[in-house]
């Protein structure tokens, strides 16, 4: 999709678990793999740390998509964290639907530390998908966002 002549560049937030996905991303880099620059990574210790509020806030602050990536089921460094992430993501997708936000804008992936290639592929694929979906226009609630931002500042 084209916006003012330039190719539309979706903004993606990636929450990557420290042990698998973040290392995987690192590997992708070490292995000189090409992946879209649209993904902006936030490292967390475990995908289980990802509070659904982070995802919503990311959307509120202008992200067009959010990627949550963790270890493969059974390989979680914290045994079960990724299953919590899975359940939250499944639930969150249902919620997004009701808010009229395409659930594909939230993506949960299992990327192990050795899957640098997969990381690159997911990133590129997701970027293309979001490009096809176009920019996310949330219900205009500037005050809400402002309030949220203030709180962050206040803490």
């Amino acid at each position, binding site marked *: 999709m084209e916006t003012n002549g330039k190719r539309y560049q979706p*903004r993606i*937030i990636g929450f990557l678990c420290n*042990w*698998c996905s973040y*290392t995987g991303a690192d*590997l992708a880099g*070490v292995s000189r793999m090409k992946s879209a620059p649209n993904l*902006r990574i*936030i490292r*967390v*210790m*475990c995908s*289980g*740390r*990802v*509070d*659904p*509020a*982070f995802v919503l*806030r*990311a959307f509120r*602050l*202008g*992200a067009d998509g959010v990627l949550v990536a963790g*270890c493969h089921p*059974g*390989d979680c*460094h*914290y*045994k*079960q*964290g990724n299953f*919590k992430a899975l359940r*939250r993501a499944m639930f969150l997708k249902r919620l997004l639907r009701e808010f009229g936000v395409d659930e594909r804008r939230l993506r949960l992936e299992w990327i*192990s*530390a*050795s*899957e640098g290639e997969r990381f690159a592929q997911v990133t590129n694929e997701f970027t293309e998908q979001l490009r096809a979906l176009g920019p996310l226009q949330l219900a205009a609630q500037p005050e809400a966002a402002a309030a949220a*931002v203030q709180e*962050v500042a206040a*803490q």
Partner: protein
Amino acid sequence: MEMISLKIDGKPTQVQDGTSILAAARPLGARIPALCYHPLLKPFGACRVCVVESRGTAGFELVTACNTPCAEGMDILTDSPHVLAARRVVLELMRARWPNVSILKELAAEAGLTTPRFGSPKKDENPEACILCLRCVRVCEEVVGACAIGYEDRGMRRRVVTPFDQPSEACIACGTCTSICPTGHIKLVPEDYRGKPAEFLLGPNTAIYMPTPQAVPKVPRIDADTCIHFKTGGCQACIDVCEPGAIRHEMEDEEIEVEVGQVLVTTGFGLFDASAMASYGYGRLDNVYAALEIERMLNATGPTGGRVLTKDGRTPRAIGIIHCVGSRDENHHRYCSRVCCMYALKFAHLVKERSHAEVYNFYIDMRAFGKGYEEFYSRVMDEGVHVVRGKVAEVVQAAWTGRENGTMLIRCEDTLIGRFREIPVDMVILCNALQPDDQARKVARLFGLSRSPDGFFLERHPKLDPVATTTDGLFVAGCCQGPKDIPDSVAQSSAAAARILATISKGAVEIEPIRAEISEEDCSGCRTCNPLCPYYAIEFLAEKQVSHVNAALCKGCGTCVAACPSGAIAGHGFSDRQINAELEGILAV
């Protein structure tokens, strides 16, 4: 127990009551032949070859020595005319039925018998015919205790059989019957024999054996699967013969729990099963060997004493060594097993050293990367080993008759000359790939190790931390982490050991400051977090009605932080505030 005195061939002797005449006579040098008699078995008196003359006041009688107990004042003759006549007739009758059985021939000759006068309706020409001594049936019952065989019918029609002539369930394939049979009528036939040295097939062929000639510790062991005792509870003959009394059948496997602070995982590798590549004929063609089998064959203490032999015992004229079997192969393992090139060259070298066979190495790339390896490579070249650069397409049987001496053809493309070639060989050696052990997955789960796509255990960082894992106190070394040769394995495990010792000597463990903390005044005691902690670090303080995080147990995953519905749990290191600030930042532009 009272003693009995009697005379044998005029020699007076004393024996314990109940001793058979045979047992009493043999020590005195009396020559009493016997067929059905065996010292381990109860006397049976079936063959009647052991007849002797017993003189008494009322004249004499002929008795079988094996099952007639001695009696006070007996006067026994073992080679009187009566005895010899009677024995000759017995043997004559047996020979009439089994003319070619060697032991009967010998005894007959001894008894001065030439060709028998009789014929037999059941004449059996077989030199290994069953002479119905029934030692086998009795040993199976009396010693082995398996009772796997018996006999049917009587007189002329008697036969030794398994129940209902079916393969006997009770048979434990101990082979005792074969060894006790005087004519070699019973044979032990191992299944699925593929012309390999027995040790690759049957495992130990005796119940007590030495694992390998160079076993460490160098002590024999009992194979419970083969040992009669573990099957029948009987036998234990070994205990009688072992003077130091070193044998303990009652010993059992036991699990020993050891509490440790750190673990070094060195569970090694598994071998690629070459039969998966059917076109190379492993398991199908007689003289196609896997690398480890050749290791044994080339071993001075191996089954062939280190000689290079084909199945039928000839020295091969030409040998093909195929590299990268299962390695560097899209269909099997994409990685290089790293050790094959060098051991393949070693084989070539040893074969050259011990035979005049031509040696062909079929390789994709020759990887002689280590210290001194390249030199070894050129040396092997100088020894006249042929190398063909190309992946072998298939190995086919070229010879069909015995006279063709089992020649095979190796078909491949020689990429250096760009030609398709067929090379005849007598023996093929396959260099199987190294692959993760079958148990690797279990081990990984047990220790919470990650595995790379190829299935080997994952180190913390491929460059910066190749011996540690993502779990503190857990290290990996050797081929369980990836294919490597001995020097590399030694180096890696030494490194790991050093790391472990460093922590031990420090005596304290540093844990990350990343951790969850519950604020008591903020916690409502809703207990949502309680079941979430994988380390059981969250406890509920009943008296205060709030939950509490044990800082020592908490690993800081933050799952509880994200879950706390009233935001009462602070995630130090990755707090909501920090992450929100990150979000603000990266989404600001």
